[in-house]
């Protein structure tokens, strides 16, 4: 009984996580400018990662694996916002405005 409940919870978390990650990936592809895209990516990084890893934790039970999973989560939660923050700041400094379809500064052919 308890076991089935846990596994259903885990499935639910995993499914939500994967659904959201898909949605956000589409967002990353479709959104008009850099900052909205960043929003899609940043949120998906933290939220989906959380959901999926928690789903896996429920599957794993209490073991070394859980510990590692939690470490991964910790890592992702630390790094992703930090990176997003630094990236946004750098972009802002580089003179990218919101809603402004900027010329690609990098001239790639």
């Amino acid at each position, binding site marked *: 009984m308890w076991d089935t409940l846990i596994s259903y919870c885990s499935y639910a978390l995993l499914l939500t996580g994967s659904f959201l990650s898909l949605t956000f990936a589409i967002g990353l592809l479709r959104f008009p400018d850099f900052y909205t895209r960043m929003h899609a990516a940043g949120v998906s990084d933290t939220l989906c990662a959380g959901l999926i890893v928690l789903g896996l934790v429920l599957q794993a039970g209490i073991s070394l694996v859980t510990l590692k999973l939690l*470490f991964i989560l910790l*890592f992702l939660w*630390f*790094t992703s916002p*930090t990176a997003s*923050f*630094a990236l946004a700041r750098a972009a802002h400094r580089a003179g990218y405005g919101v809603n402004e379809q900027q010329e690609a500064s*990098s*001239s*790639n*052919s």
Partner: protein
Amino acid sequence: MVAIAVAVMRDLFAIVMLFGIYSLLTAGIFVSLDAVDVAFTEAAVGAGISTILILSTLALTSREEKKSTHSRFLPLLVVLVTGATLVYGTLDMPAFSDPQAPVHQHVAPRYLDQAQQETGVPNIVTAVLASYRSYDTMGEVTVIFTAGIAVMLLLSAFRHREDEAGNLNDLSHHPVLKYVARLMIPFILLFALYVQFHGDYGPGGGFQAGVIFAAGFILYGLVVGIDKTRSMFSDSVLRWLMASGLLLYIGVGVVTLLLGGEFLNYNVLAADQVKGQHWGIFLVELGVGITVTATMIAMFLAFSEVRRPE
């Protein structure tokens, strides 16, 4: 796919980014082909160390590539001939992942069947790497050592001077980064130690641990300050560490010689074969770890401290 993009694009910076993805993808393929140790290394090396080194180089050179006016015909011909030779070669190859292929018949079964009894190590890759073919691994450490001293040789003359410290580029003015990174570094080092000593049972080993260990210090250098990292590792300390790791490896070999075995025959290290193997593998992996850590840090510092072009 990514590779094509790399070939076509001319913004070197974007290429490096894609190269990072390419490495991660390759590593993913390695995992799906059961090569966990290799994936481990490829991720750490291709996506990590190589990317960082290439980026540092780009920062010191230029980012845009000029339009090449080379003739494209000859290279294309050479490449096509090479490719054709290989395709021709594949026609007679045993089918992919066929367990009856000769690759899986001759040497490998012995490793899989007996390595655990003979060396006491369940990770066969580690067993083969550090015991059966440990001489190759010694060569590998030597290669890393060679590259380390070569990089030092090439770049040491261009070290920035003390009074130009502001020239160094780091992220020490980001308070958030600094805080988070400081929090994480102890965990990274802990994880490196885990990888170093858990390599017998899971994926990992001296090389991977060395890279992670160095990654911790590279992180420190990036967010806290290159000069701070340098003050921990002066050139002579790094040199000493690099050499001592290699010497530890060779030393194990010499000790086995003196104890009457062949070079790197760990069986003579203890009365019991498995115990001897255990000691031998432990010591050589440690040697690998030390040299790799020191070399990676040395390379990172050497690349970071070059004076930028005026």
